[in-house]
């Protein structure tokens, strides 16, 4: 299933946050969206997943979601959004129950996604017993359980420390390599963008406009931390964004 954004414009009580964004996200590709803070990247993601309505423009799904897909557009949130009163298994079963999947069928799905995220031993643990990285892996497992057509990742690694972030990036790449998924990955971290994006969309500061979309040719599986071409790409992205970021920083002070 492809996604197309047509002239998305959005404002919060007279403050324009997004202006005329058009994008196409083909199936099986991860698009990273980067931009200075407050440029509306997270808002854009909420619009794409239907959690908010754009003031004008529309988000279109092209084609039908694959068979067995319970929730075509599925989020992974920055703060994990796990129910603290449910175990790891219970948190995953939560999103299956409403589709009438219980008992053995649910067990099979839960066991499968926990195995894919290497969490099988933690099925009965409560969220408070898990580290941040583990919590986010549970959230990723939960997203995989509904077999999404598009994963919407809202700064999924931003609440984690650098080492955990590195581990989870490898996990995401491994997941994608095993079974390519369509992803929209919002981040302010350029290193994540160059590691995980097939394409990288750069937004300007508020009101967010699409400045450029850069294609990264290196296959996901061949990318590593500290690779020269990734480093130079990251430097290029930073050059493009730096002035905007400075301006955005000044702007926040005046709000």
């Amino acid at each position, binding site marked *: 299933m492809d996604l197309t954004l047509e002239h998305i414009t959005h404002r919060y009580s007279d403050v324009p946050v997004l202006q005329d964004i058009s994008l196409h996200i083909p199936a099986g590709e991860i698009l990273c969206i980067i931009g200075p803070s407050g440029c509306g990247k997270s808002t854009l993601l909420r619009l794409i997943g239907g959690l908010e309505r754009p003031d004008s423009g529309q988000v279109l799904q092209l084609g039908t979601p694959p068979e067995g897909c319970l*929730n075509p557009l*599925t989020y992974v*949130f920055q703060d994990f959004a796990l129910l*603290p*009163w*449910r175990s790891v298994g219970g948190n995953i079963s*939560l999103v299956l129950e409403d589709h009438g999947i219980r008992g053995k069928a649910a067990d099979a799905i839960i066991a499968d996604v926990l195995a894919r995220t290497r969490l099988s031993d933690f099925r009965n643990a409560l969220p408070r017993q898990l580290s941040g990285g583990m919590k986010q892996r549970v959230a990723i497992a939960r997203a995989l359980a509904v077999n999404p057509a598009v994963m919407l990742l809202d700064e999924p690694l931003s609440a984690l420390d650098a080492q955990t972030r590195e581990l989870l990036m490898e996990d995401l790449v491994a997941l994608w390599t095993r079974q390519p998924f369509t992803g929209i990955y919002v981040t302010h971290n350029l290193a994540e963008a160059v590691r995980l994006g097939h394409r990288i969309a750069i937004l300007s500061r508020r009101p967010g406009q699409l400045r450029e979309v850069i294609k990264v040719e290196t296959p996901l599986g061949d990318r590593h931390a500290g690779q020269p071409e990734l480093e130079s790409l990251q430097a290029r992205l930073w050059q493009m964004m730096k002035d905007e970021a400075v301006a955005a920083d000044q702007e926040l002070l005046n709000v």
Partner: protein
Amino acid sequence: MSDADPARPVPFRGGGFRPVAKRGTGIVVFLLLLALVEWGTRAGWIGNLTLPRPSDVGVTLVDLARSGQLWVHLIPSLTRLAVGSLLGVTVGIGVGVMIGLFSHVRAGLVPLVAALFPIPKIALLPLFVIWFGIDEASKYALIALGTFTPTVVSTYGAVDNVDRTLIRMGQSFGLSWLSIVRKIVLPGALPGILSGLRVSIAIGIILLVAAEMLGAQYGIGAYVLQAGSLYDLERLFAGVVILSALGVLTSAIVGVLERRLLVWRG
């Protein structure tokens, strides 16, 4: 740093501001206080009419239990408290959840609850006697109304405080409205609802005694009132001891509920 400067350990400046549970301290303070009064009444520097001797109060309590009079008074009181507060708390939680979920209900009922809350409910007892009769029903109604208002306020506060990101998560996975309420909103509001319960039930006990003082033959409140009008301090204090035991007991029950239902908080 020159060699002449002696090495000194950095002085500790942290710590404190963190109450820790000290087991048994409460009981020790209580027993000390009792021992002090006992000593004072025996030695004579506390007069007979100032405070009764704790041991005499104890004897009165034992007699009360032996003669069966304890149950004659305690059972009606417990029934009134149970029926009245169950009614008030149930309806209160229901209304509180509705206020938390629906804007129209909130707009309509919050001012009403705010208006009801500060009314001293005991002042309404004569009205309730006219409405519900002199018997038990008017006492149930009084306790129910008294526990209702604080329960509503704490419940809708608890619903308001449920983490919105969890609700947004539920929506993003396509959960039905009912599922979101049942599986996210209610469990998320439970800690707040339970801590509100402590306040509500304490208010229920106060109203129970007040209602029994105004018009009941049996009940702890009636017993205390009788003792008071005869200046029988031993019996008065025996009644007061039973009431505070009742308070401690209900609070302990809520504590057990919290430990059982909120295991996930750790």
